[in-house]
């Protein structure tokens, strides 16, 4: 049996090795078989992750600390860079030794993330074998995917903020590479750039947060920082740290106002959208907030901000998703909205575990939906506009059933996975609102509204695409049939996960118990959690489910029977401009364009002009100076040995003169 430490290293190391192999051998040797190393490594990685979960569970059973660490090497090891404080003065924090090691650490939170990431990425990789077949960049795709899985697993295993930041950027890089995978398409290249730049804004906040952590706590290790968090309760710096970290989370997890990159990121291949922009990378922000629970626990103001931003984003994403016509865009906005849910849960503090629970189930059903959409897209020759598709139920039965399960799960219909995790969030939020009211009550109500909207936006494309009269776009040719087994098999597995995994975790309490042993969540046990009757749980669950079913019923009524109802409703909504607002995505992109992008471009052009005309000419002038000096002294070197000897003697005389005078 491999030790926990070995497993911890293997989980990220295997995909990295596979990526290296794919990159080295892909273009020449492996070509169309480039998926082999990556799929094999991901499978092994998944097995290692599951073994790791079991090992940690074993430790919990033995009442040991369920933490495994592996320090690979010491990265920075600089002694304190300041002289010790003067006698009698108080030591200012933040002047400790700057020690950062490349060390990984697995606790239950990490292990759960490991298992989820490895599982989804394995399925997506298998799916991609069929989806990407014949693409010119086949090996490149799998190399990037391996690299991404390495970065993502290392991100959740990092033991300090610096390392976390490094892998945070690395997943960002992989995201950039994969969004721009078809970089010859201008839209893809632009989307990749946009994603990178918007993420940069968030990352700046994250970096500032790390700086502030350093000056406040004098260390960057998770354990060192979290153990000191209590001493700083109520400190403005702690609140600032939390907000800055959340700023980073907003960028990566596409929360308002930094959500604009995610819909555009759908320019990448669909498996990428499923893996990176739905299931894994975008949840890094949620992971960050969950990991930093001890900090947020001591900063109530930051909790409110997180919850409020999450709630606002959840609603905004859902409203926009209702009216979009591009299937992948609908799913992208739904991802934004669901990430908002996770942040609401994390902001409600006790709901962190519920947020992580939702993260896991969401990974399954959202990956399922995306891959389903990809399957449709694959068959339809790249067409993904739902207005041009219809009645595909019979032509693609597997996709149909899988997609149905995904929709039921995302809508939160009992007993599908999404139901349990969403119900957990609602429950925690209800508890908090019950205890405090105010913002949390508002959030609770808005999430309830969101539940209806989710059902609506999930089933609208479902009914349009799979029911009604058969519409097949001309691009599809005669390929409009079910996808190959390598694509449908992952769909089936994911559908099974979307169906059962939530219920399994809920009934066995496996996930919640396991997660509660995470050292980061220890602080929650200290707080007195508002007591709510268990009956409330059922009431909330039933109410939520009822709302979902109501939403589905409305959609069914509107879209299953062809009629003018939809048009009429649209017109009615547009009386207040609501429809345009939703269809135009609240006009946030044009707003940014007018307020930020254009002014900045103007400044950039001015700066470029100044740089070229003014600064460059000045620099050029300076650059010519040494050469001119050289030209001036050049005649001395005339090749005459007499002169050389004379100058040498003169030199000696000058030296003697200086010495003697």
């Amino acid at each position, binding site marked *: 049996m491999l030790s926990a430490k070995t497993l911890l290293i293997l989980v990220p190391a295997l995909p990295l090795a596979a990526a290296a192999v794919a990159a080295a051998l892909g273009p020449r040797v492996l070509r169309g078989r480039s998926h082999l190393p990556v799929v094999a490594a991901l499978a092994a990685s998944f097995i290692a992750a599951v073994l790791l979960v079991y090992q940690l569970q074993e430790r919990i059973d033995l009442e040991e600390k369920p933490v495994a660490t592996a320090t690979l090497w010491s990265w920075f*090891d600089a002694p304190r860079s300041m002289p010790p404080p003067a006698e009698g003065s108080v030591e200012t924090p933040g002047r400790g030794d700057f020690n950062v090691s490349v060390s990984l650490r697995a606790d239950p939170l990490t292990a759960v993330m490991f298992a989820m990431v490895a599982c989804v990425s394995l399925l997506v990789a298998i799916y991609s074998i069929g989806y990407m077949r014949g693409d010119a960049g086949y090996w490149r795709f799998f190399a990037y995917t391996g690299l991404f899985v390495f970065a993502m697993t290392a991100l959740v295993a990092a033991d300090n903020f610096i390392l976390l930041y490094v892998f945070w950027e690395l997943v960002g890089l992989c995201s950039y590479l994969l969004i721009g995978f078809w970089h010859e398409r201008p839209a893809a290249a632009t989307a990749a750039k946009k994603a990178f730049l918007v993420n940069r804004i968030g990352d700046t906040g994250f970096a500032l947060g790390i700086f502030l952590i350093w000056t406040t706590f004098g260390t960057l290790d998770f354990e060192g920082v979290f153990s000191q968090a209590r001493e700083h309760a109520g400190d403005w710096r702690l609140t600032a740290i939390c907000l800055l970290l959340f700023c980073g989370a907003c960028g990566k997890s596409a929360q308002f106002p930094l959500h604009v990159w995610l819909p555009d990121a759908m320019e990448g291949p669909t498996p990428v959208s499923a893996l990176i922009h739905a299931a894994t990378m975008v949840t890094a922000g949620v992971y960050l907030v969950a990991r930093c629970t001890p900090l947020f626990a001591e900063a109530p103001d930051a909790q409110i901000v997180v919850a409020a931003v999450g709630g606002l984003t959840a609603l905004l994403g859902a409203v926009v998703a209702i009216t979009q016509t591009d299937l992948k865009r609908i799913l992208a906005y739904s991802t934004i909205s669901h990430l908002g849910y996770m942040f609401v849960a994390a902001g409600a503090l006790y709901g962190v575990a519920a947020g992580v629970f939702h993260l896991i189930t969401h990974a399954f059903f959202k990956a399922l939906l995306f891959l389903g959409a990809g399957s449709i897209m694959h068959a339809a020759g790249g067409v993904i506009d739902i207005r041009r598709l219809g009645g595909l139920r019979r032509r693609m039965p597997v996709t149909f059933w899988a997609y149905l399960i995904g929709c039921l799960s995302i809508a939160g219909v009992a007993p599908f996975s999404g139901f349990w995790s969403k119900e957990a969030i609602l429950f925690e939020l209800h508890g908090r609102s019950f205890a405090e009211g105010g913002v949390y009550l508002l959030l609770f109500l808005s999430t309830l509204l969101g539940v209806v909207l989710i059902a609506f936006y999930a089933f609208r494309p479902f009914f349009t695409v799979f029911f009604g009269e058969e519409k097949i776009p001309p691009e599809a040719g005669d390929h409009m049939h079910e996808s190959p087994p390598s694509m449908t098999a992952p769909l089936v597995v994911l559908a099974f996960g979307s169906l059962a995994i939530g219920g399994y975790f809920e009934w066995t309490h496996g996930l919640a118990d396991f997660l509660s042993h995470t050292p980061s969540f220890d602080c929650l046990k200290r707080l007195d959690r508002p007591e709510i009757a268990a009956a409330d749980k059922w009431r909330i669950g039933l109410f939520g489910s009822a709302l979902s079913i109501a939403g589905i019923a409305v959609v069914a009524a509107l879209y299953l029977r062809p009629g003018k109802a939809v048009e009429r409703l649209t017109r009615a909504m547009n009386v207040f401009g609501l429809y345009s607002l939703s269809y135009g995505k609240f006009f946030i992109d044009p707003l940014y364009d007018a307020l930020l992008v254009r002014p900045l471009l103007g400044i950039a052009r001015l700066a470029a002009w100044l740089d070229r005309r003014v600064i460059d000419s000045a620099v050029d002038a300076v650059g010519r100076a040494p050469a001119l000096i050289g030209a001036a002294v050049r005649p001395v070197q005339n090749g005459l040995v007499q*002169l050389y000897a004379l100058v040498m003697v003169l030199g000696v005389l000058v030296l003697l003169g200086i010495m003697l005078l």
Partner: protein
Amino acid sequence: MTAELRPLLPEIVLIVAAVAIYIGGAFLPARGTWRWIAAGALIAATVLLWNHNPNASGDLARYVRWFALAAGGLLLSLGAKPLRFDGTPEYVGSLLLTVAGLMLAAGAEDIILLFISLELISIPTYVLLYLGRNDAAAQESAAKYFFLGVLSSAILLYGFSFLYGATGSSELSAISTASPSFAVFARLALALIFAGLCFKTAAVPFHFYAPDVYQGTTHANAALLSVVPKAAGFVVMARILVQAAPGMEPYSWAIVLAAALLTMTFGNVMALWQDDFRRLLAYSSIAQAGYMLLALAVALVPSGEWDGLGALWFYLTTYAAATIGAFAAMERLGREDHRLDAIDDLAGLGRTRPATAAAMAVCMFSLAGIPPLAGFWGKLLVFGGALNVEAPASARWWFAVAAVVAVLNAAVAAAYYLRIVAAMYFRIPLATPPADGGRGAWFAAVACAAVVVGAGFYPGPLMRAGDFRQRQTPRLDVGAERGPSILFRQEKTTATPTCPTAWSGGDEKSSCPNTLAYCLRRRLYYRGRQ
């Protein structure tokens, strides 16, 4: 063999081998064999040096002796392609003698032996310059070097005689403890010695020979000229100015500093105009001598955590590796009847000879001081030392100015080093170089590039080896009563680097002032112990 001579065995082996090769070469003109015999002699000397006192480091003489053997090996490899005319025995014999001379100069305890060892470098070099090429330019360069070299030797010897007159002793250890009877003599001596050695190191205004001589000779000879005499000059400067006569002239640092600034500026601005590769590298070697002089100036004042001598030798080592590598790459690219001289010959090398171009580029980047290559660490140590001298405020100010000028100079220097890189990678190939300069040259180029990269990524061992402050170097007691004799310093004590007293008290690790170099050095030091 008597016990006193044991430490000298490596040098003895080299000299005996050189003499044997000279004599044997007259009878057996087999060209290839002599190279192998010379290589064998170098290896034997290495083994002897290792056996004599293995694993020790931190002693200047020891460091330079290793340096000399390594440089000798590389130079032998660089010039290994047999010459067409029959000069091989003389060539390798002279090379061995210069190596022996450098080793002797590092260890000689007596100024007479010191002078002889310097001549042991100079005279074979005159021979080498005649051997390399057979045309008018070569004759001219050899003659120039001979005349000016003799002049500089005379100046140096004159300085030595004043030193003897002022202190009454020819032994360095006695000189260092003597109180000079005539302060004027001592100053005269220092000025003349410094001037004489400046010729060896190619410092302004004693540098004039370098461009003409380099241009007129072969790559192998240019490589030798840019490394061996420079190292000898600096080791003797270090031993006399820093170790033997630190109290004689409190302001000698100012002169060295002025020479440093003049030298680096002159070398760099002149190099900008060169189109000939060897001439360009000649000016480069002048400019680099300027940085080394700056390190020497740092060594002449109390410099706290930063070790001027250590910086000097680290710098010199990285410079030597990069320079030999550059010349070796050039040598490898050419053929005996088709030598590459102009920078234009390198156009498009990145496409025609990618591996050689890479080695050359690495060397150029290192010379320009671009991280993470070895040259960067050298510049870091030198400039950092200049910024951290613990001297009176006025001196500190001057050193700060010098550091700024040095950094500006480094920027200027990058222009011509990168011009070579740009020619190799961004220009269209004019003709494919024959690349028939021999496997030895190829090996030397690759080895040098590897050293530059290796010492760049992992500079610790080299820095530790050149940390001369760790050890006191008391004299060997053998023969101490016998008066002046050939003696080698031997290291006895080992001490960890200590904190200056101002910060003492409390935990050593946490209470030291931490300049960057200190941190670096300390980290590397402790890591080495683990």
